[in-house]
């Protein structure tokens, strides 16, 4: 059996794996009956052509648009790791070696 190779899932991504019934007309990947779009393309190729009628193609389209937008706009900080509460806690006021070191007057900032 040839499994369908379309990526599915929300929290955890994986391959669809259902028996393939066709190949994508553009990239040739194996597709199951659920993932063949009306144009005979896989969801990714359909999304690239702005054919977003198929639900999987619609989400692929949104993902692609988001990546494109965030990589061009200045609001994109370009770094996909973020600090969590464990990272932040040691930087709270009072956690320094010496409070005097941090205190530069009311409302002031400690610079780099």
């Amino acid at each position, binding site marked *: 059996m040839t499994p369908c190779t379309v990526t599915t899932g929300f929290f955890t991504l994986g391959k669809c794996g259902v028996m393939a019934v066709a190949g994508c007309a553009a990239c040739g990947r194996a597709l199951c009956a659920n993932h063949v779009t009306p144009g005979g393309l896989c969801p990714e190729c359909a999304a690239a052509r702005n054919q977003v009628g198929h639900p999987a193609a619609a989400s692929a389209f949104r993902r692609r648009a988001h990546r494109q937008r965030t990589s061009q706009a200045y609001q994109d900080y370009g770094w996909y790791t973020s600090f969590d509460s464990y990272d932040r806690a040691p930087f709270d006021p009072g956690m320094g070696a010496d409070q*005097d070191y941090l205190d530069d007057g009311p409302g002031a900032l400690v610079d*780099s």
Partner: protein
Amino acid sequence: MSDGHRAAYVAFDRFPSAKGSAVHIRHMAAELFDRYGGGLLCVLGGGELPAYQREGGVEIVRFTGVVPNLLDRAEAFTRWVAEQLAPHRDTLELCHVRDPWSALPVTGRMVYEANGLPSIELPYAWPLVAPATLAKIRDLERDCLSRAAAVVVPSYVIEKAVIDRGAAPDRVHLIPNGADPVPAGLPRPPAAPGRYLIYVGALQAWQGVDVLLRAFARLADLTDLALVVCSSVSPNRARPLRRLAERLGVGDRVVWQYTLPHEEVAAWLANAELSIAPLTASPRNLDQGCSPIKVWESMAAGTPVVASDLPVTREVLGEHGRFVPPDRPAELARAIRVLLEYPEAAQELAARARPRVLAWSDVRHRLAAVYDQVELH
């Protein structure tokens, strides 16, 4: 947009201030803005500094949010910079940044001026920071340094550190700090004691001011000698060191000056017997590196320098300073005593060191050459 800026200079530093970083920002930003006919300067505010200024073609905006947690503050600064840059995205040709927090929102052509690495410096002030957090900050630095069209560093040690963190070696340019020539015969400041040693700079642990105080305590027999500490930070932050001076019994022989305007420091330096740079052998100085403006300015003022024997101080002074093992108060005291005993030799040392100093105009020319290169690519 029609009135968009062509250049931006971004720094997570307060500007202006009494710190050496502010001197650096002033000269580097001036070169950038002269070249592009003005620009946008995004820096930290606070105190009495206005949040917005327009000086000719230069627009100065200051981040004034009071965010107690440093990491939150850095991220808030990054978001704020993104908002400041957004209206100019169609016209910006070059962004000059000094730290990763400033570099993150820049998507266009960027010159990264690496004077320090937060992943090395932050644990000094926040000792509870986790290694995993520092690893994230290192990744952040790596990301920003590898994206930069050029990385400007003030010393070989930092050059090596940024290449280790992903900066392409052919894009790293060494531009040492500078100091403007000091005219001869500057009048003695009215508050200056008779004979004095001088320390100029900030008071972080890596500066080794505690080592200097311990060394000074060993010079108790030189009753006519005082120590002047020109602190670039407020009296609050000097409190632990003042307490140490009291405990060592030298409290009444140490003269503290706080946040002196930069133009007044030269007179204090020029009239001192010796200038001391007691940097410690810490990762900040050994792995990260620095180009201490206090040493450059002492050399420009013709004052003999006694410095810790570290690659960063050897790089600045060459052989024309008196070097002592770092973190050794007794050795430092002995070196000071020797130079005070032989003033002619000390003056000779200072005279040989003086021609090594780059004027800020030379520094600016070197930066202009980096901009030329960046624009060609």
